[in-house]
């Protein structure tokens, strides 16, 4: 990344180097060093296994032409070189940033970094244990992109004085399990909603540049195009076998995943009011925009979309949000009964959302889409 002109204590491998780094210039005593403390966050991704034989049995021959084109495009790596800082990377005044905004923004960056990193770990594992060439190639390419995104966010964090700690491998970690079809639903949806989230912020800031308080937002468009093509690959995978989207049970699973992902996003974004205010974004407007775009895109493969215009939908989200606030408070203050009550309310709100009748669609014969927002 940066040349050696500016050094940062996060790069240092010895104490002496750390204290000699530019961000510590002028500090001679330990008190001063503590005041300019480097913060440290340990990434702890989950580790996954799945039914690798089942995954190997996937056969993309029914969508071969689209598949080969997409993989060739991913192999050509159009975004290579994009994730570099150039003159557009303005100076960030981290010290002058309002502390609440700084905390929420860092939380946003760390969550994003963790998600990219977890994706990378998952895809690498699939790549390593799979034997089906098509699938292995796809996961290898996706692992490359996710690691690159994680590296880029990590760099932004380092500027803020946050060192990401990758020492988790020597901690005990349990491997959890994902059914292959759940990997397809969850990954597809997380890539597509990721695209919708990034592009909505990018377009908003394009129109309102005075709200762009950090240069990383300028990179969101190419970034989300990676997410978009990852999602395309999973759409093709699901298209390769009609059972993934057409059986009664799987339609219910799709609805479950849509509801869980949308409602989690709503609740989580409402936990960052200062961040959204700084961007000039109303979280309710943002959620509706992102859901609308995601629903439009997912019609390419999913036979249903959630009825986000139904008044029950917004009411349910708000109920879930309130329950979540109470739950967090109960957890923080050790209020046992309040915690039970809030959990029941959150569960009830989820059921209310899940049982809101969905819109049905006939999926198009051809799946492929290009990013259009």
């Amino acid at each position: 990344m940066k040349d050696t002109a500016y050094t940062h204590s996060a790069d240092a491998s010895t104490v002496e180097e750390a204290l000699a780094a530019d961000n510590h210039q002028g500090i001679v005593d330990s008190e001063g060093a503590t005041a300019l403390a480097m913060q440290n966050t340990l990434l702890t991704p989950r580790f996954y296994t799945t039914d690798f034989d089942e995954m190997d049995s996937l056969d993309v021959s029914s969508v071969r032409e689209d598949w080969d084109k997409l993989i060739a495009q991913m192999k050509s790596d159009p975004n290579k070189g994009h994730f570099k800082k150039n003159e557009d990377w303005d100076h960030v005044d981290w010290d002058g940033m309002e502390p609440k905004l700084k905390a929420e923004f860092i939380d946003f960056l760390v969550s994003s970094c963790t998600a990219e990193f977890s994706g990378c770990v998952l895809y690498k594992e699939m790549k390593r244990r799979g034997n089906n060439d098509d699938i292995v190639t796809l996961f290898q390419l996706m692992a490359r992109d996710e690691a690159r995104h994680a590296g880029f966010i990590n760099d932004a964090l380092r500027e803020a004085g946050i060192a990401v700690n990758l020492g988790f491998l020597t901690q005990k970690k349990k491997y959890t399990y994902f059914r292959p079809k759940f990997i397809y639903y969850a990954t597809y949806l997380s890539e597509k909603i990721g695209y919708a989230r990034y592009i909505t912020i990018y377009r908003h800031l394009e129109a309102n540049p005075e709200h762009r308080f950090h240069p990383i937002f300028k990179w969101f468009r190419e970034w989300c195009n990676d997410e978009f093509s990852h999602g395309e690959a999973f759409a093709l995978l699901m298209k390769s076998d009609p059972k993934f989207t057409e059986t009664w049970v799987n339609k219910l699973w799709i609805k479950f995943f849509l509801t869980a992902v949308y409602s989690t996003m709503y609740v989580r974004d409402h936990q960052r009011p200062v961040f959204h205010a700084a961007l000039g974004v109303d979280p309710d407007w943002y959620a509706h925009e992102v859901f609308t775009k995601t629903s439009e895109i997912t019609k390419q493969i999913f036979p249903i979309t959630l009825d986000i215009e139904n008044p029950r939908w917004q009411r349910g989200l708000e109920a879930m949000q309130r329950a979540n606030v109470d739950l967090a408070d109960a957890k923080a203050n050790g209020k046992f009964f309040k915690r039970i009550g809030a959990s029941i309310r959150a569960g009830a709100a989820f059921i209310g959302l899940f049982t809101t009748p969905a819109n049905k669609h006939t999926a198009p014969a051809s799946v492929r889409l290009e990013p259009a927002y």
Partner: protein
Amino acid sequence: MGLLTREFETAPCEVEVSHCFDSLHAHVKFLNGATINPGDEVQVQGPPVMAPYGEVVREQRTARITRASKLEQLWTRMTGDFEFMELCEFSFSDEVEITEETALGAVA
């Protein structure tokens, strides 16, 4: 594998940690072909494998694998699916708890 009992084994492994601008990743590869099943636990032995910024560190280590009991494996198969939210950028994670450390601690 017992219904309720856990078993242990060790496996030689290669750990790769990349702390670069181009790629932030950390992976473990078992060198004896050991495979991991749902519910198993893996711990790479020795001190944390740390890569300074801009470097890729590759080390041969030993991993201790705790094999899940049959029951635990079944349970993980049934419940693991619900952890998928972590893949979303807006997921709830505990990792956002950032710990204050001095400059000395952070470079360890």
